[in-house]
């Protein structure tokens, strides 16, 4: 393995590089057995964490995955690296991708993800120990210096422990640790949610810089839309384990097709008192009294545009344009 990999430059296939699909997911479902509470209840029940998910991850691009807590976004990311088994459908991975080697994670809470007993140097170099080839001390120090510099850490602080750093710096350590093995795909699971507002952009911009330097493919998971719009080329909106909308980020933001996507955009507070004073609140949909049949659209209970058809079947994915898909019977115009 080449440990001094130069930044990838797609000289000969510059134009086609972005069309190259690294991971293709086709109608994939993931379900978990629900532990039975009854002793002799033999029929096993399942919780569908992901249902019928299809997506493509293109080389050098950023895919944003957005959804509320429990929508399945982390399950999706973990399934892509093979940490969770699929129960239906399949995941095709390009020949040159070995998931355990070429896909790395950056986690939400940097302090929780870093071993408190290891120094920064040990933390960043640790992933190399699990790679096949061992490298000598001199080379690893060289790599360490390079990566610490790239993520904006001071090499002279390599003997310190994670708790001595601020949240933003810990996330930089987390990113350095992920990047040390030269991954092709970086999965960032809410990498800035735990950080202060004024330092979030520093980390996002760092990820963008690393992406252009190494031709990295990014999967960016978030619970709201606020930062996704800056980093993602494509976006996927998950609701209760289903992809409700999918497409080009700019397009989805300017013309959301699914009522849920629109609700997410509208619900976001804005730092503008005048705008907030004009805000109109959507009537609260109380779905508790309403009996939603099992085969209904997953969002029917909360949807303010619900019609009778929505209660009878799960909507299939339809294309609004070549840049946007939506799973809704009555997509918004």
């Amino acid at each position, binding site marked *: 393995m080449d440990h001094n990999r130069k930044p990838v430059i797609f000289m000969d296939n510059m134009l086609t590089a972005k069309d190259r699909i690294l991971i293709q997911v086709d109608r994939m479902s993931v379900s978990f057995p629900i532990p039975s509470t009854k002793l002799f209840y033999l029929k096993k029940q399942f919780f569908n964490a992901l249902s019928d998910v299809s997506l493509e991850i293109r080389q050098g691009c950023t895919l944003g995955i957005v959804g*509320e807590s429990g929508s399945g976004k982390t399950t999706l990311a973990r399934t892509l690296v093979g940490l969770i088994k699929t129960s239906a459908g399949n995941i095709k991975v390009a020949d040159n991708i070995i998931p355990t080697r070429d896909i790395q994670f950056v986690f939400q809470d940097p302090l929780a993800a870093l071993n408190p007993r290891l120094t920064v140097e040990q933390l960043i170099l640790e992933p190399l120990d699990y790679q096949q080839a061992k490298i000598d001390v001199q080379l690893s120090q060289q790599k360490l210096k390079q990566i610490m510099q790239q993520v904006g850490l001071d090499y002279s602080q390599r003997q310190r422990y994670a708790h001595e750093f601020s949240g933003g710096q810990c996330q930089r350590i987390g990113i350095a640790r992920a990047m040390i093995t030269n991954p092709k795909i970086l999965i960032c699971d809410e990498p800035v949610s735990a950080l202060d507002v*004024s330092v979030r*952009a520093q980390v996002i911009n760092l990820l963008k810089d690393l992406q252009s330097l190494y031709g990295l493919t990014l999967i960016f998971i978030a619970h709201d839309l606020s930062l996704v719009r800056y980093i993602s080329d494509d976006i996927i909106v998950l609701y209760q384990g289903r992809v409700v909308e999918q497409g080009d980020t700019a397009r989805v933001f300017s013309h959301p097709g699914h009522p849920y996507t629109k609700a997410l955009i509208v619900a976001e507070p804005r*730092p503008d008192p005048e705008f907030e004073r004009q805000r109109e609140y959507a009537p609260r949909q109380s779905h508790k009294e309403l009996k939603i049949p099992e085969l209904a659209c997953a969002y029917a209970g909360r949807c303010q545009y619900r019609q009778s058809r929505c209660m009878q079947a799960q909507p299939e994915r339809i294309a609004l344009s070549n840049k946007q898909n939506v799973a809704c019977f009555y997509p918004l115009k």
Partner: protein
Amino acid sequence: MQPILAARNISVRFNTTKGIVYAVNEVDLELNKGEVLGIVGESGSGKTQLMHSLIKLLPENAVLSGQVIYEGQNILAASAAQINTIRSNDIAMIFQDPMSCLNPYLKISAQLTEAMLVNGGLSKTEAMQQAIAMLEKVQISDAALRIHSYPYQLSGGMRQRVMLAMALLRNPKILIADEPTTALDVTVQAEILQLLKQLTAEYGLSVLFITHDLSIVAGQCDRVMVMYAGNVVEKASVDDLFYQPKHPYTQGLLASAKSQSGMSDKLVSIAGQAPANNKRQTGCPFYARCNQRIDLCEQNKPVLRSNGSQSQACHLYG
């Protein structure tokens, strides 16, 4: 007008094994009757410690100085019993994470009625009736059934509604809300914020709203205090703060918040990071990150100066 709650010269220090931590430095605060005062700051800015000091909820190693005047009385000098009465009857709080504030072993019925039974002198049936009525008020459907749930059976948004109901049941005069929606999904957050706004108006509450998110302040507050590294750096009405921010930190924070809401093309941040709070500040605490600093700022800590309704602690404004 006499403020309903006023704090004078509040400082909070912690004696730790690694030395003194300066959490809050000489902060003044006035909460007027019926207003919502926002306290904005990032982690470590001292906003939560300030709030805890107002009703003396600090841990044992904290050294608190200053005065908190409520109804002509200095709360900080009051006896434990007096403070408990104030906490129970006058000043209610809701917190960021409702799950860690609700007792997982008790049904919410027991937790909602506890204060009424202990301090309110109500019978169990009366207390239950009031609790159910209040759950309806915070828009929990099937309140009569749900009151028998345990906290784990409720969603995050529901739990926050229960917390709010618990706070309002004693008919307080002041509500302290510490990041009440930070742990919630954005659509649920919108619902809770709307509910809070509606109920505080209905009950004529004076609210201290603590948050790290300027966007929430825009929609919820009448006046705002911005904190940085234990200091108040700017105080203004919500419109002044958002449309003519004075302090460079407020300007930077607002630019970051705006860019994250898609109101600008580029994602903005403030370079650097907040200073460690284990030293007594001699210069301006924002000096290292400030893009408008002058020589004076390094050695001379600016005090809060007011020009009309807006005040800021910055040498740029004389």
